[in-house]
């Protein structure tokens, strides 16, 4: 095993941190959330990220992308998670790119991936349906007249909405949903938009076929990316907390000298280090040993879920009353963590999948 970052990855991480520090400070995030021109702030960030090539990081060079792998993306997404950027990069640069490359015909890839890589086309994918839970085998095998997809990330601002449908048995397809109805479903995580999208079956333009296993692999890659974002945001919460408890004084001393406080901070770090390992491991598996993807993705997501929620909660606790205020960003991190916990499989779902894989159930 080798988890060290190479030179390019260190550069990617450092430049991303610097870029996001300038372009997406808390004030900018707040402008997106509160101001009338909020969408403009998100769009401005997207253009600048596109200039850096991020939307095409995973897209293969055949389709004018950077042709990098999940490990590189994980390194980047730790930083984008730390900055709580909106969901477009995740939806378009990871979910849609993975789905198209896994299932769409070469012709369709040729048609859409170059524009996605360039950031000109913001794509997203609807997979889950009401009642399917997190299990693609539970998708309706027969679409009926109208197809409804739930939890579609960034559906409101997407230029291209893709549906991944089950076609019966183990079969699946990817299709463009034309003239779709996009309805906001307000998530606890206000930094990310989620939609319910409906499309009539005769407006679906099929781009390719695949299997339910392909669908699960696309979800697993997205889960690894989301886990990377969660570990990045957890690390940021710990940084904020360490700074705060060093300076906040009670009983004539910094609260960070109190052992009860110190030990919670230590637990936050332990969770983050373990979680980061899970993410790097799963990302390396996605790049090099895709046959083992399912279990590795579950390791990463289960750990990241647990770390992010507990770090988010402890961060608020250690800030006292201030941590409970709307002004502090801590609640945004906790809400991100909580919403992400229930995206692409909650902890229980992933543990059950591992148990099944180990022959325990």
């Amino acid at each position, binding site marked *: *095993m*080798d*988890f060290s970052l*190479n030179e390019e990855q260190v550069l990617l991480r450092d430049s991303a941190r610097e870029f996001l520090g300038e372009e997406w400070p808390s004030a900018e995030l707040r402008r997106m959330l509160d101001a009338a021109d909020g969408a403009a702030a998100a769009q401005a960030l997207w253009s600048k990220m596109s200039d850096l090539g991020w939307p095409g990081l995973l897209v293969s060079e055949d389709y004018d992308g950077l042709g990098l792998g999940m*490990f590189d993306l994980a390194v980047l997404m730790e930083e984008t998670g730390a900055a709580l950027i909106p969901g477009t990069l995740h939806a378009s640069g990871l979910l849609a790119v993975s789905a198209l490359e896994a299932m769409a015909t070469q012709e369709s890839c040729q048609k859409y991936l170059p524009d996605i890589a360039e950031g000109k086309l913001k794509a997203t994918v609807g997979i889950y349906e009401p009642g399917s839970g997190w299990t693609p085998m539970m998708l309706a095998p027969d679409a009926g007249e109208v197809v409804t997809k739930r939890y579609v990330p960034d559906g409101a601002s997407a230029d291209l909405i893709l549906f991944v449908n089950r076609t019966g048995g183990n079969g699946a397809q990817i299709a463009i949903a034309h003239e779709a109805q996009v309805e906001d479903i307000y998530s606890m995580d206000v930094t990310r938009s989620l939609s319910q999208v409906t499309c009539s079956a005769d407006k679906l333009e099929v781009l390719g076929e695949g299997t339910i296993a392909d669908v699960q692999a696309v979800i697993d890659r997205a889960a690894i990316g989301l886990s990377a974002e969660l570990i990045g945001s957890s690390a940021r919460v*710990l940084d904020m907390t*360490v700074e705060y*408890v*060093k300076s906040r004084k009670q009983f004539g*001393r*910094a609260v*960070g*000298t109190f*052992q009860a*406080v*110190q*030990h919670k*901070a*230590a*637990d936050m*770090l*332990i969770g983050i*280090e*373990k*979680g*980061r*390992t*899970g993410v*790097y*491991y799963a990302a*390396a*598996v996605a*790049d*090099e*040993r895709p046959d083992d993807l399912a279990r590795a993705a*579950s*390791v990463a997501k*289960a*750990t990241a879920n647990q770390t992010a929620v507990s770090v988010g909660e402890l961060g608020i606790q250690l800030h006292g009353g201030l941590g409970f205020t709307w002004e502090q960003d801590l609640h945004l991190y906790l809400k991100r963590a909580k919403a992400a916990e229930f995206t692409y499989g909650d902890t*229980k779902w992933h*543990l*059950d999948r*591992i*148990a099944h894989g*180990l*022959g*325990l*159930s």
Partner: protein
Amino acid sequence: MTRLQDTPAEAAFRDRLRTWLEANTPKIGKHDVAALKAWQRKLHEAGWLGLTWPAEYGGQGLGFREQAIFNEEAARARIPPNINNIGLMIAGPALIAVGSEAHKKRYLPKILSAEEIWCQGFSEPNAGSDLAALQTRAVDDGDDYVITGQKIWTSNSLIADYIWLLVRTDPNAPRHKGITALVVDMKSPGVTVKPLRQITGEAEFGEVFFDEVRVPKANRVGAENDGWIIGMKTFTRERANLSVALSVRLQQQFDRLLDSVRNRDVPLDPQQAREVAQAYVDSQCLTLTCERMADRLFGFESSVVKVAWAEMNQRLQRIGLSTLGPDAPLLSAGAFDQVGDTTATFGTEALSEGDESYAKSWQFGYLRARANSIEGGTSEILRSVIAERVLGLPRK
């Protein structure tokens, strides 16, 4: 660049090692000192010990990668524990870091070959977590120090040839400034060892009494009154090596757990299955964290993996025992000091559920794991180390 695959050289190393372990791993009772010494000597002679130690002292001069491969393969083959673990994990690495050339030449080869077993005399009745309170006195007397005092919880002291000792040489200096590190021959006149029975019934550790014991000054490691720094360096190495070695045992334990639950007649209930899956997730992440953080583990960050490992192993043992159902607490009378009690934990042969020592091995594991969050620094102390030394929180 591949991250998961061995390089061709690593793969060859792994192959050779695996073949050797398959042919040579013995089944040994954990109280069979002679057999355990012979096993360690054999490992050493075949070139599988001291992988990262310098070649001039009997080591292999290899990198951490090879050590990690060794750990993985050792777990897979379920090899017996190293009888000289204190020498290999604590005294040896400390000598490599701070010992003189003469000390390294004299002691390191025999640590590797298990010809000389080591123990570590740091803790005292009144100096545990607060180690700087230690009182064992060393009085300057010409070419010797004369030592009087007591150490406690000294693992392997009953079988040890040497003790890696911290003593007070200057009682008037500030606490941290009057401590010195020594190597002491356990056969010196005036050294007495008494076993201490543990909650498992065994006596892995004991008390060591020093009554005017003469120790040549040549046995001093580092300068007089420099012992605190040396002790701290010993600790970071102890925790680093412990974490790495422990991740091996974690893997062994997890595999054992899997074997046992797969062989059950009654399937696990969903909650138990989830607990096992959670243990898989955590042990996987922890083992790989040791590899990921390898280059930082000789610093304070070793505490991160030590604390996580202690809790993980404690949880794993709890789960293992719980899978036995109503028979979980039976058949042992709570003591495990008879030869053969936990024998078959080692060697490739797995215990099966009907086996009497099978239930005992989980009981033993459960009880022994209570020490994990005490030995090598309590988890409370280590969390403070993480907060203050890694995260930079203020001490006052």
